């Protein structure tokens, strides 16, 4: 989705009879604009475009390849390198209970994604249970319970308990025999110090196998900073980018990956419980370059 305007500028370049420095500079400028419109972090865009320009102009073109094709290859490689060369699957260790803890900014799509991931694993034969450790949001337990009811997955929560650690530990006791337990938490942002601290404590107490951050695909320049702050508090194992069924191009998520090193493992493509797809970097960038 970083795509169509980049595709247009590549087409323009192929229209040029000879690829010279001016044409490459022109292409890089178009590229910058396209990446910025896709919400990629400004600093990252400037770094990326500097590197791409150097490589495109100075690299020895391998014999037999037209220079134009080489430039396209460079653009493709630099962006794929950012996302991670191969898709990284969410690891489930068989024969033990895997605990995944979901975190993220308010309204990013955590609760919905927790239910979607439960469905994903259920379809693959795993016994899944959910814990609602969001003790703040009105109707949080009802929301997760209603979603879980759609797929017959058990949920543990306690509307009278204000301590998320207590709820999580109680839920983990109850769901000892499950293959996968997914813990939903309250939304928070990096400047809510007490909530960030609460998240840290929760992670220390339940020791999840993986911490998954849900990032809103419509998020702009703040995505990298938010992800970085979350990562410094609780090391993020992977990212899910939600709401990519809209018109947002997801560059914020790309910036979050660059800032944390956490790979994107899934994307959310709608509000229904089946609207979850495994993330595939080369295919994503291929779509990006049209």
């Amino acid at each position, binding site marked *: 989705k970083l795509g169509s305007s980049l595709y247009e500028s590549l087409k323009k370049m192929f229209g040029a009879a000879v690829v010279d420095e001016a044409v490459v500079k022109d292409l890089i400028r178009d590229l910058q*604009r396209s990446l*910025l*419109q*896709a*919400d990629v972090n*400004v600093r990252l865009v400037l770094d990326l475009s500097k590197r791409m320009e150097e490589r495109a102009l100075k690299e020895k073109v391998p014999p037999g390849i037209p220079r134009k094709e080489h430039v396209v290859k460079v653009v493709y490689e630099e962006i794929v390198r950012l996302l991670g060369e191969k898709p990284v699957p969410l690891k489930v260790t068989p024969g033990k209970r895997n605990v995944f803890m979901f975190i993220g*900014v*308010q*309204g*990013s*799509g955590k609760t919905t994604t927790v239910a979607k991931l439960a469905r994903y694993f259920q379809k693959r034969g795993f016994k899944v249970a959910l814990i609602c450790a969001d003790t*703040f*949001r*009105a*109707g*949080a337990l*009802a*929301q*997760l*319970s*209603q*979603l879980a009811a759609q797929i017959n997955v058990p949920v543990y929560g306690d509307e009278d308990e204000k301590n998320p650690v207590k709820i999580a530990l109680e839920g983990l006791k109850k769901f000892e025999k499950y293959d996968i337990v997914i813990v939903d938490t309250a939304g928070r*942002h*990096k*400047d809510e110090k007490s909530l960030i601290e609460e998240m840290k404590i929760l992670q220390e107490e339940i020791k999840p196998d993986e911490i998954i951050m849900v990032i*809103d695909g*419509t*998020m*702009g*320049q*703040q*995505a990298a*900073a*938010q992800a970085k702050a979350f990562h410094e508090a609780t090391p993020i194992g992977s990212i899910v980018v939600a*709401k990519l*069924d*809209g*018109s*947002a*191009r997801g*560059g*914020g998520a790309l910036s979050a990956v660059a800032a944390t090193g956490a790979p994107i493992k899934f994307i959310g493509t709608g*509000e229904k419980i089946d609207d979850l797809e495994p993330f595939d970097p080369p295919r994503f960038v291929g779509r990006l370059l049209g």
Partner: protein
Amino acid sequence: TELKPEEIREIIWEFKLALIENDVAVVVADHICEQLESNLAGLKIGRFNDKRKIIKEALRETLLKLFETPNKVDLIEIVKKKQVLKEPCVIIFVGINGTGKTTTIAKIANLLLKRGYSVVLACSDTFRAGSIEQLEQHAKKLGVHLIKHRYGSDAAAVAYDAVQYAKTRGINVVLVDTAGRMQTNKNLMAEMEKIIRVVKPDLTIFVGDALTGNDAVSQAEEFNRYVDISGSILTKMDADAKGGAAISIVYVTKKPILFLGVGQRYEDMELFKPDLIINQLLN
């Protein structure tokens, strides 16, 4: 001497990047900087004037002008007018998923109750899991009545019922919550259009997330196109949001921003003041 285009172009480019870093959409930043460049063309300045300072002040002027929308929307004034007419003031909230519509409704209800107005809530989100329970908990906490139907029922019917309820009981304000929807989903946008057509609200408020990037343009454009919004509320400004989304939304809709959401509690809402965002942007 006259300001030459080449000397100001470099400085304007730096300011443009600053706007974009502060979440002003690229196309909006482009337009603002084009306007800035034409406003500065041929401007006579003294040989020792600080060019950057002059350009910065010109940018400030451009941004301030941007926020001077053709209509002002004063929520309390509109509620007062309807009260005099002995009619309920109907306000409907729309926007994409997760921007803070439901929470904002609770904040507005709180604001109105504090001023002595009576309020009824309508849960026209008949789709999302837990939407009714969420609004119900807020209604209980605020001590107001909630009109709700079952999940899957007609969203417009709930709003219609709420307006009838308010009419028969002389309730001042009806606040209608709607389901989040992507502006690219034609069916859901058409459903929203139907709700507005049936209910004929006094105010249609677009609720946007201050952390949104370039998509703010498409969201504001589409929602405004489908239901002619009265104004916007920008939420999550407390999340270190730079406020550029406010500029994008106002630029595209030419409608005012009424309030800023600055937290999750009922009191976390402030009247929108353009200077705050502009100062933050330019300093």
